[in-house]
């Protein structure tokens, strides 16, 4: 399966995605995954609706680069990154990352690395609707710090 990235408006079925990722590979001893969801509160305000914009073309390239980088750093088999765009609501799934490996340590680390880099490198932007109106979400310095950990 290799490194697969998908940017889509529709939802995804986590069970089906994980089954497909490890299908037919008896060397897989570990699958680590992460699901990001829309929260109903941000910066203390209720969020009713969220819009995810991206930069078509560059988004896929950046995600592929991140997946390739994970594969060079850790002994993993396959990885899958799915990121949704368009209109989303609280409870919706936004992002899914799954990594297969022989052992859990490599899978956990690679999965966390992919998410940390996705948050700071992949060209996605969130606009949210709150009772005070619409606003673009600001980047967080804690996300930069999380990605910088991996440089050491």
């Amino acid at each position, binding site marked *: 399966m290799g490194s697969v990235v998908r940017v889509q408006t529709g939802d995804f079925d986590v069970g089906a995605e994980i089954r497909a990722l490890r299908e037919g590979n008896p060397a897989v001893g570990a699958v680590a995954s992460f699901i*990001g969801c829309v929260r109903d509160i941000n910066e203390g305000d209720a969020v009713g609706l969220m819009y*995810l*914009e*991206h*930069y078509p*073309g*560059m988004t896929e*390239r950046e995600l592929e680069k991140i997946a390739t980088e994970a594969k060079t750093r850790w002994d993993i088999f396959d990885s899958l990154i799915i*990121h949704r765009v368009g209109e989303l609501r609280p409870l919706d799934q*936004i*992002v899914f990352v799954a990594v297969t490996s022989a052992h859990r340590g490599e899978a956990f680390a690679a999965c966390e690395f992919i*998410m940390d880099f*996705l*948050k*700071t*490198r*992949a*060209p*996605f*932007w*969130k*606009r949210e609707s709150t009772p005070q109106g619409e606003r*673009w*979400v*600001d*980047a*967080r310095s804690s*996300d930069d710090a999380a990605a910088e950990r991996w440089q050491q």
Partner: protein
Amino acid sequence: MTIQLLFLARLRERFGVARETFALTDSTGTVADLLTTLRARGGEFAAELAPGRAFRVAVNQEVVTVEHPIRSGDEVAIFPPVTGG
């Protein structure tokens, strides 16, 4: 000798334009030169692209620094720090 200039997310809304064909002049050699020209338009361009404001520039879909050269046919995108995931 033109480039495609793209503005994304909050910057697209502020500038009121998503994409424009931008004519290169002799003085457009680098990203820094392009930013100087855009700031000279004044208004939101001057405010949002002011030195010290947080934005990123990608040339042909790769994030670059201000020293990066710009050549005819390039796709140059200017956008806010990313907030996906």
